């Protein structure tokens, strides 16, 4: 990355609360005009401003599309400064890949830019059910640093099976709404110009995945995406800013496979919901960052989904 851009970003950090700088990263241009602000493998805190997921933006000849506006107001502001440092073009589109707070609660930083807000057809319901809860959770985890954080309501929805194109001028992003996988409303983007598949949390690398949709469904979606032609790289929701596709999905696929197989076995042998987290897929979980915080939840979610099949 060129020195001037970094200097501009660091200057921007002066506006953040003291101690916040540790949570701020610079935007990485993973393909021409496609920038990722890498997240940290941490839980949300006042220090990291909930900048724990990969967010970013795509620059066309006429306009900019934001892909997830960040995990808090401060994180969103940081992203907005990174955009301003990269291009003078207007922000016309904000894509929300799914409801999780580390991806949407920075929306407040973009409330005044007049952009359309795009999400999966089921995103409004997910926001209705969870936004208030996420606000309270962020306040608990970040304290005063959470102030002002909020999601933007979607203004345009993409339905499963009905891909839509997002025109940025000389560059079009294909938006795909998926059946239940990581969540029940995952939206991915494909930038044909650079062969970049922005998967957000459909792909976890290094940080342990979190299951909030459908375990068999997620496996099916990944298998389908692995066959897409013309994909040079993918942008995971957590992990490096860009990775090889589909090679980088192998650890995730292994984890989900072990989780499903061993959860089914636990249910079949009468291991209860209380005991399953310590006994299911623990070997496969051990290699992931933050496994101690999420693996038990994943087993619980898998168990509840599979026991009534």
């Amino acid at each position, binding site marked *: 990355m060129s020195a001037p851009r970094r200097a501009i970003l660091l200057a921007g950090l002066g506006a953040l609360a003291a101690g916040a700088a540790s949570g701020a990263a610079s935007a990485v241009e993973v393909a021409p005009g496609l920038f990722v602000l890498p997240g940290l493998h941490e839980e949300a805190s006042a220090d990291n401003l909930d900048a724990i997921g990969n967010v970013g933006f795509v620059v066309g000849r006429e306009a900019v599309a934001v892909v997830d506006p960040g995990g808090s*107001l401060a994180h969103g502001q940081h992203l907005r400064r990174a955009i301003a440092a990269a291009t003078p073009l207007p922000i016309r589109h*904000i894509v929300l890949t799914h409801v999780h707070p580390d991806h949407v609660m920075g*929306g*407040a930083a*973009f*409330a005044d*830019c*007049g*952009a*359309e*807000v795009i999400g999966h*057809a*089921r995103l*409004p*319901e997910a*926001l*209705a*059910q*969870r*936004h*208030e*809860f996420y*606000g*309270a*959770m*962020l*306040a*608990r*985890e970040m*304290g*005063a640093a*959470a*102030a*002002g*954080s*909020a*999601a*933007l*309501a*979607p*203004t*345009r*929805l993409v*339905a499963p099976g009905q891909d839509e194109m997002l025109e940025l001028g000389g560059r079009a992003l294909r938006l795909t709404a998926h059946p239940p996988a990581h969540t029940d409303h995952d939206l991915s983007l494909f930038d044909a110009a650079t062969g970049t598949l922005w998967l957000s949390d459909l792909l976890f690398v290094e940080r342990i995945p979190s299951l909030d949709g459908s375990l068999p469904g997620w496996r099916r979606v990944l298998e389908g995406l692995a066959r897409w032609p013309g994909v040079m790289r993918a942008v995971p929701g957590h992990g490096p800013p860009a990775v090889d596709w589909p090679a980088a999905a192998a650890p995730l696929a292994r984890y989900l496979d072990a989780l499903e197989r061993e959860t089914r076995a636990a249910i079949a*042998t*009468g*291991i*209860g*919901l*209380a005991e399953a*987290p310590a006994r299911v897929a623990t070997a496969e979980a051990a290699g992931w960052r933050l496994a101690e915080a999420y693996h*038990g*939840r994943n*087993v*619980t*979610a898998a168990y*509840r*989904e599979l*026991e*009534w099949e």
Partner: protein
Amino acid sequence: MPHRPSLPRRPVLLGAGLAATGFRPVLAQGIESAEAPRRTERWRDLREAIFGSRRAEPAGEALILTAPARALDAAAVPIAIALSAEAAPAVRAVTLVIDENPAPVAARFEAGPGGDLRTLSTRVRVDAYTFLHAVAETADGRLLETAQFIKAAGGCSAPLGGTLEAARQRLGRMRLVLPEGPPGPGRAVPVQVAVSHPNTSGMQIDQLTRLSIPAEFLRALRISYRGAEVMRIETDISIAENPTFGFALQGEPGGELRVEALDNRDRRFEAAWMLVPAG
């Protein structure tokens, strides 16, 4: 799509955003000391409302309540209650209370002539950081109480695991789990029964209408073996979706285990299994 929510034409912030001023910090670690007196008072009020003026003694080793310190899923928190071998024969009922839930009495287990309450388990919704209390009532009218603090939030309003439609289609289906097989002479075995039922709390939002889903929940279960009642369970909205109950069963093998359930809409569900030893 049967219903399409109307969308704003320009981006609008959801809620008002988190308040920028007047922010009240919340202690996330340990049991908030500032809250301790309020929590103590809450339990005193609840106990009086449920058990009247009867005095309760600390249960000590007689009654053990097990819950995760931090829930993995606030909408389905596994809870276990165990009575000591000495205490179990004298205990006729055990009540599970979730102090901060909108309907604090989660379940009341009452021993039938054919059973005891030595090990009990269920899954509950937990709405906010709270004390859980288990209270055992003995045949001679004593109350034994024990408590656990749990960090969990949002369990009462958490969305259903699947769609309400799918839940309705398998409404009333039951599962029986016998990890150690049927009981043998003088040998009690763990049993788990589960009823497919959305057990909605009235605090969940419908995916389509965005209105609250009406509370639809099991009120009572009756479990019997070889014609003798093992236990009755009174339940409420604090019990998780697909209500699941574990208990110990003793008696001769080869009998019929029967579960009858009743919900708040007076729907009855029933299932029976012959507990025949494998092989």
